[in-house]
């Protein structure tokens, strides 16, 4: 476990415990405490990673493998956006306001645990914690959709937990240890892979299910659609990415996919990634619910990351990490916008929406930025990460995958264009007539994230340097 980052785990946990007591009679204090905790973490992270001297030194002074730091930053960023958004979004008399924030903070802590741990069992524990908190968060509002989504989430990811634990058991048996390092050393040695690989494959399968990769994606649409609006953003933006996708990337580097070990697993992961891209994108085309479409889009985008992780070359890992971060930014924007739309117009059914751009210009334009980034339109950040992934695929001779992955961007663009047309452009519908722009605090996190999308795109060289450093460190 990376001790340097332990504080990022402990402080939210502490805050989570304090909130119910401190804010017992003053629900607003819960907002403030949660936001302050996350903001402080963000500020600290910025100081750690974005000092001019660090940037000038090409991030060589970053402690640890760099990936943890990056992901902790992403976690804090998304969580902060969501809590900030929630502070104005939550109903005034939501009885469990404190519990809501506590759960978020606990899940932040758990995610930090996931990204900083160096041991499979610990990883598993934190992932289970995440699952529990997510379950509760999804049902934050009392809608039946939320409960159904939560149940699906839990039931359908349950096999994942089982598979991971079986995998851990098998690995324990055959490897004699559960630390990442031991697996890395084992894979580096030229020993016959056998059971260890099989154990890793089982774990990989568990993570694939957690990440919602097709054909194990079935829980995502219902969970994201049914979830309480800001929670959808939180789940789609970061939670499932940390609990599933991060672990896949980690496992992929440990299994040394890049030098051809565990070829069968690598190939399967890539295939599933490609399959997700296709299935998610095609299924999104015909959705009529804004959030459900975003959920399918999420499946498709996760496919890109998984595809790259399955390839496992340094370039691919760079692309995967970058895309993970980008996905966090653009999917958060889109889900938060869907929350705004829901709050303002009262529905996320796209057939009932229309012409919202006049009343909600900010929401409309930030959506455009985010969707273009998702579709990989330059110079936004999504373009560069996809480009890296595709270059990596091409470099490894997987030209068919590269071409397919690239061309599915057009499907991505197509369904987002349709969404934009139905929701924001077009004729004003009855629902849109009486829907004013949401208040500035609700827009602030969205605008911040959109700015980040543009900035990451334009400041690609700096970010590339960082990701390169990460890839070099974790692949060594």
């Amino acid at each position: 476990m990376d001790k340097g980052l332990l504080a990022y785990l402990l402080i939210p946990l502490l805050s989570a415990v304090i909130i119910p007591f401190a804010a017992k009679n003053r629900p607003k204090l819960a907002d403030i405490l949660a936001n302050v905790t996350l903001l402080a973490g963000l500020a600290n992270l910025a100081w750690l990673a974005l000092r001019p001297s660090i940037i000038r030194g090409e991030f060589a002074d970053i402690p640890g493998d760099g990936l943890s730091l990056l992901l902790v930053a992403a976690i804090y960023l998304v969580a902060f956006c969501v809590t900030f958004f929630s502070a104005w979004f939550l109903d005034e008399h939501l009885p469990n306001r404190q519990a809501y924030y506590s759960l978020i903070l606990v899940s932040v802590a758990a995610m930090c645990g996931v990204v900083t741990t160096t041991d499979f069992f610990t990883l598993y524990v934190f992932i289970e914690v995440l699952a529990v908190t997510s379950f509760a968060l999804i049902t934050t509002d009392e809608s039946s959709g939320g409960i159904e989504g939560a149940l699906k989430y839990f039931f359908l990811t349950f096999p994942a937990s089982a598979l991971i634990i079986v995998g851990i058991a098998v690995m324990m048996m055959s490897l004699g240890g559960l630390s990442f390092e031991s697996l890395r050393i084992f894979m580096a040695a030229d020993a016959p892979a056998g059971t260890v690989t099989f154990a890793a494959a089982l774990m990989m399968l568990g993570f694939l299910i957690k990440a919602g990769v097709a054909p194990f994606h079935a829980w995502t649409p219902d969970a994201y659609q049914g979830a309480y609006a800001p929670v959808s953003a939180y789940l789609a933006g970061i939670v499932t990415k940390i609990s599933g996708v991060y672990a896949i990337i980690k496992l992929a580097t440990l299994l040394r996919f890049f030098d051809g070990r565990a070829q069968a697993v690598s190939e399967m992961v890539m295939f599933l990634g490609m399959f997700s891209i296709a299935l998610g994108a095609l299924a999104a085309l015909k959705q009529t619910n804004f959030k459900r479409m975003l959920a399918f889009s999420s499946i498709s985008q996760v496919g890109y990351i998984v595809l790259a992780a399955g390839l496992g070359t340094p370039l691919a890992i760079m692309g995967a990490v970058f895309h993970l971060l980008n996905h966090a930014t653009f999917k958060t924007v889109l889900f938060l916008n869907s929350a705004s739309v829901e709050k303002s117009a009262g529905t996320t059914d796209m057939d009932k929406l229309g012409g919202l751009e006049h009343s909600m210009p900010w929401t409309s334009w930030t959506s455009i930025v985010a969707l273009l980034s998702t579709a990989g339109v330059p110079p936004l950040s999504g373009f560069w990460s996809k480009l890296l992934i595709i270059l990596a695929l091409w470099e490894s001779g997987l030209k068919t995958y590269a071409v397919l992955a690239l061309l599915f961007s057009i499907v991505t663009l197509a369904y987002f264009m349709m969404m934009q047309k139905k929701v924001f452009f077009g004729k004003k519908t009855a629902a849109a007539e009486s829907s004013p722009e949401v208040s500035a605090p609700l827009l602030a996190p969205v605008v911040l994230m959109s700015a980040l999308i543009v900035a990451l795109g334009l400041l690609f060289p700096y970010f590339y340097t960082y990701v390169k450093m990460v890839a070099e460190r974790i692949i060594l």
Partner: protein
Amino acid sequence: MTYHNLLFVLAAVFAVWAVMAKKLLTSAIMLASLSAAVSLIFFDFGAPWAGVFELSVCAGLITVLFIGAVSLIRAEEEKHPENRTRFYALPLAVAIFAIAAWFYLPAFFDELATGRQMAAGGGTIGLALWDLRRPDMLGQVLMLAAGVFVIKSVFPRRTENK
């Protein structure tokens, strides 16, 4: 070995049952039983902590949550029964999987058995399991906190609604 096999079969049966049960409640209970079976397998394979954790987390806490939540929406669910005739083919699929596994996986089981002996011979498993488990304690703490907040979050609301 028979014992192992029995447990594996049991786990499989519970899993299939969980999928095919008409009532979500039955599903949840079967899921818990599955967890229990898996825990027993862990115990038998010399991974007691994993077993404990699986039992406590999956079979215990989570199932409690589930049964609670499921019971809340049971009434609604039963109003719209699903046609699940086609899922009766599932046992067949499981059988196919078992046969396929019989052909594909024996090598794996053999290796696993040798691995176990090797680990047992070294006597390091317990050490490895417990000495390096401090982060897991953190995990347990987190899990407890999560459990508390979940209960705080979910249950008052549900009862209020009732």
